[in-house]
């Protein structure tokens, strides 16, 4: 499941740079030992004990029965029958305990993995973070951690059982039927080899992932364009194309399934043939019938313990891939992107200098044609055709995109050098977190009082709301679906205001708001942060939603082709306009 969900999209981006990144599996295992050593030891011991009990039970039962059939003179019925019962109980108890202990170890590991993932990821540079938080990658990261933690119960425990059973059996055979010991060893080795055949090569995994991504793409677009396609009577045609795409995916998976079934059945045949060979060898060696029964039954039990090996190996490979992906995601980058000491947080606004910056995306470089020096405390409205680089500029100013040419300075230094909370970007895809609205605002400032939170929500126009509908204590579920798009934007805006940034960047803040609501929400910025520098990207057709009269803010059209010339007047410091800033 988890394996089939992954795409190699991110692994290529963030290159491991530290020791833990180069050896992701060992790094993760060290974490396992550090967090769950007692559980792991108990689980391993119990797994071995359970395997031993199984073998003992079967062997003793066979021996006992033959002895009953031809009892020697002084045969005492009670010790062996009591032994059988004791071994049976041991097996059950060890099985239960083993599962509990190994899953406990896995869960502790999972907790540690997730905590480390979060703290590592929060040290990523903003550009890498943006890639990290995008889309459904997070869900996959969650699943990856689970797959990795599943290594303990799904791989480690069965492997320990099989090893213990194998070792015990080889010893037993070496004593009783020495010629059968190598046969058993060979059979076990062949079983493992057959299991290895089920392992899928990374290329194969990538191909399945690519087929899955293509199908997902088509599905998403189709759902968005459904009415048009319905009117064109093309839904059936598209449906057929989707089915085709899914069929391709299934065909790839079928090939992998067939391989796995073949390997698994092959392992089964090898095990049965081993048992057969050992039975024949034992019987030819002519030990007493009771001893022969003991050997054959014990070997049967030991071979049974090898049954989960193919699945265990498959899971091990998935766990290794998951560990690599997690490590690639969270390799802690140099936290300050250049080893500079962080600047002190400072009040007031920050001046901004933009001079033809070359902003690097993972696949291309965008150079918005922009040359300006913005004094602290200015409101700048960026407009221009989509694709002209408005969002690019904002993200670069927020330090989320690296620049490699030109000049982009905030307060005289590169954006990445500012401490958290000083430069805040409110982006399209900002998340309203599960919890209350107050919780969300306190993320920006944990000292906020209830009253202040109410004031902030009122400032952006979320309050007053009809009683019982919305308030600081309204609980938001994951995904924030109780809020409309416009409400989510305003919560994010209020949260940004609560951080009291010196440079506030807003990308399409009025999307989903009507003109009155937009006036109100944007007006809050100038009222609450009179000294901050504010840069907004606004569609030019939304200019009527700006609360500030012309002349009280600076307007710029970004264009990648021609150098924009700022309006004839100088950028106007806003001090004088704050009170009349909104109509």
């Amino acid at each position, binding site marked *: 499941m988890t394996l089939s969900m992954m795409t190699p999209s991110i692994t290529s981006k963030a290159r491991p740079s530290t020791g833990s990144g180069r050896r992701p599996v060992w790094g993760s295992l060290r974490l396992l030992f550090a967090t769950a050593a007692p559980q792991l030891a108990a689980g391993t011991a119990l797994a071995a004990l359970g395997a031993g009990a199984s073998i003992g039970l079967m062997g003793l039962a066979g021996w006992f029965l033959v002895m009953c059939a031809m009892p020697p003179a002084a045969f005492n019925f009670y010790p062996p029958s009591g032994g059988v019962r004791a071994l049976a109980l041991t097996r059950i108890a060890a099985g239960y305990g083993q599962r509990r202990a190994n899953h406990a170890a896995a869960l502790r590991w999972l907790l540690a993995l*997730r905590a480390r993932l979060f703290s590592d990821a929060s040290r990523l540079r903003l550009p890498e973070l943006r890639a990290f938080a995008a889309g459904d990658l997070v869900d996959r990261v969650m699943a990856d951690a689970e797959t990795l933690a599943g290594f303990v119960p799904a791989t480690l425990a069965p492997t320990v059982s099989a090893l213990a059973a194998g070792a015990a059996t080889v010893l037993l055979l070496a004593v009783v039927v020495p010629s059968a010991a190598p046969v058993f060893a060979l059979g076990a080795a062949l079983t493992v080899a057959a299991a290895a055949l089920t392992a899928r090569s990374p290329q194969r995994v990538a191909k399945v992932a690519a087929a899955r991504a293509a199908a997902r793409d088509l599905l998403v677009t189709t759902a968005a364009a459904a009415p048009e396609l319905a009117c064109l009577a093309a839904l059936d045609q598209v449906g057929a194309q989707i089915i085709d795409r899914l069929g391709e995916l299934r065909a790839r998976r079928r090939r992998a399934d067939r391989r796995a079934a073949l390997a698994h059945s092959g392992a089964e045949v090898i095990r049965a043939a081993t048992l057969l060979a050992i039975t024949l060898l034992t019987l030819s060696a002519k030990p007493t019938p009771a001893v022969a029964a003991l050997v054959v039954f014990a070997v049967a039990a030991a071979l049974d313990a090898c049954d989960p090996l193919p699945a265990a190996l498959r899971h091990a490979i998935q766990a290794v891939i998951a560990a690599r992906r997690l490590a690639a995601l969270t390799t802690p980058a140099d936290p300050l992107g250049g080893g500079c000491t962080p600047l002190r947080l400072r009040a007031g606004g920050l001046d901004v200098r933009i001079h033809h910056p070359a902003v690097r995306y993972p696949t291309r470089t965008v150079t918005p044609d922009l040359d300006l020096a913005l004094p602290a405390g200015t409101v700048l409205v960026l407009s221009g055709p989509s694709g002209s680089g408005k969002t690019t500029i904002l993200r670069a100013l927020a330090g989320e995109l690296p620049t490699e040419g030109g000049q982009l300075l905030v307060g005289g230094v590169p954006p990445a050098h500012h401490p958290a909370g000083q430069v805040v970007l409110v982006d399209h895809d900002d998340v309203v977190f599960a919890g209350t609205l107050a919780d969300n605002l306190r993320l920006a400032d944990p000292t906020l009082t209830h009253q202040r939170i109410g004031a902030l929500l009122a400032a952006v126009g979320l309050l007053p709301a009809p009683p019982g509908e919305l308030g600081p204590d309204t609980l938001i579920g994951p995904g924030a679906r109780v809020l409309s798009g416009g409400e989510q934007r305003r919560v994010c805006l209020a949260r940004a205001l609560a951080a009291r940034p010196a440079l506030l960047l807003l990308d399409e803040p009025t999307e989903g708001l009507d003109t009155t609501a937009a006036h109100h929400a944007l007006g809050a910025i100038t009222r609450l942060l009179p000294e901050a520098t504010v840069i907004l990207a606004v569609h030019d057709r939304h200019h009527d939603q700006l609360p500030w009269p012309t002349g009280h803010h600076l307007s710029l059209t970004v264009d990648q082709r021609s150098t924009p010339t700022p309006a004839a007047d100088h950028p106007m410091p806003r001090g004088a306009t704050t009170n009349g800033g909104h109509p």
Partner: protein
Amino acid sequence: MNVAAEARARPASPASGARSRSPADARARLERTAAPGRGHFALAAGCRVAGTAADVAFWLITAGLFAGVAAHTLTPAALGHAGAVLGVVVLGRGLAGYGARRGADAGAEAVSAALARQVLRVTLRPAGWGDAEPAALAHAVLELADQIGDYHRTTRPARLACPAAAGVLAVVAVLHWPAALLLAATTPLIPLNLHLAGHATRAVADRQLREVRALSARLADRFRGLRTLVMLGAAPREAAAVSAAAAGLNRASAAVLRRAFISSAVLDIAVTFAIALTALYTGLMLLGYLPATRLPRLTLSTALQVLVLAPVYFAPLRALGAGYHEREAALAALDTLDTHPAPPHPPSPRPSPSPSPGPPTAQLDAPAVELDTLTVRYPGAQRPVLQAVTVRLAPGRVAAVCAPSGAGKTTLLATIAGLITPSAGTVTLGCAPASRPPSPTVVSWLGQTTLLLAGSLADNIRLGNPTASGHAVHDAARRAGLADLLACLPDGLGTRIGAGGWGVSAGQAQRVALARALLRDAPLWLLDEPTAHLDAAGEAELCRALARAWRGRTVLIATHSPAVTALADEIWTLAGGQLLVEKRR
């Protein structure tokens, strides 16, 4: 998983309450989803039965060999002979195992493929998208359907192969009937114990699983918003919250797991107890401690055979319990598939004949659009989206529908297109000589996004009218403002676009959609925020092209944009399910 949690995290939504079913009902529904894989599962079950038969043969012969050794009657020749037979049995067993796996795999594929198709059928209906996010649809088709298939892969063949146990019992009965009686008598212990274990914990289980899903969605949330947390400087503070959420999730998962372990331990105890009882009985019989006069005599050979067949007898029964984990996952998946938004009323087949590919009834004159007390209510919603809307749009006029997002613009347009059947009231397209019910066949629709099929640009435009000539396609492309794009494409209209082809921007894709609509030449145009993703220049260009294309047609356009609104003859404002009309011209 995530989608399910989201659905559950909306206690206020009556929809989730209305759709929740009793657990028994959900299980029954889950079982019904296995139908498409029936043949494959039957094959797998058959192979399993054959495998059990091979097991029986293997152990009967092996136990016989022991008896021979004990009685000193086993010759090397007989040993070799038996070895050859056993070799064949082993190979047969392997073959049966392969067949069982392939059958189960194929069955699971068939189930998940059918479910995916079913989801597509529901959601790829005109109004099937409901309020679902496209990503949720992809998740349903790609992941949830697989989870249900996986569940059936594990459980179906096991259940069908269950009668094999009866066969083993019959063999035991032939060997030594009291032993068969003993096994049969201990069998009910398994379901009884499982039932007791399950019953004691089931009530907790549903709650725990819900908790697991909610907590895991909450945890994912913190990761998703990590960028925001870092920017606000809240990440270090939130680390504790993340650990707490992860620990809570662990506690809930551990509770669920414990339940699973207990039921499997219970199963273990029952089976081990039954086998131990059989061993005790045969031992006592062999020793002659039991009244042998009343019972048939037991030889060593038979005793061994009975003892080794006991686990073989229980194996199919134990396989039944194996799908435990998968079942919970499958139930959750099915629940999400079920809560997948159903459209309010899919178009009933009666009034609107299923549109067939081809040009619309182009001869039709521009119709009047008449809404009479039109009400549309989504299932489970508190308020109707449209409430008793009565309005008439004269032929050839252009109405702009203005409303905040989510106020029902798209619903209104989809109802007029005949893609949704209203809960009450009627939509009529008034055209000479007679009025007619709404139908997608007379509509050109332009939405916020369009789908470019993998194929040539011409193929994509020709979607509007499959019989159009090359010249007509070229003309439509030009009128839609695609001349610039055409100029830079290597093969002009023949260039492959879409997946694996030439990359096309959002604005260009919208113009392809417009070219389709132009080629289609329908008398009624419905446009749902066609300029939402365009910049001002793109919007202006599209508006010019639209204004030309509209001439002589009835047009309804949902929009926020003043530039588009300026083209309209009347403005319809939609608020609280009511419609306000303002005539401009």
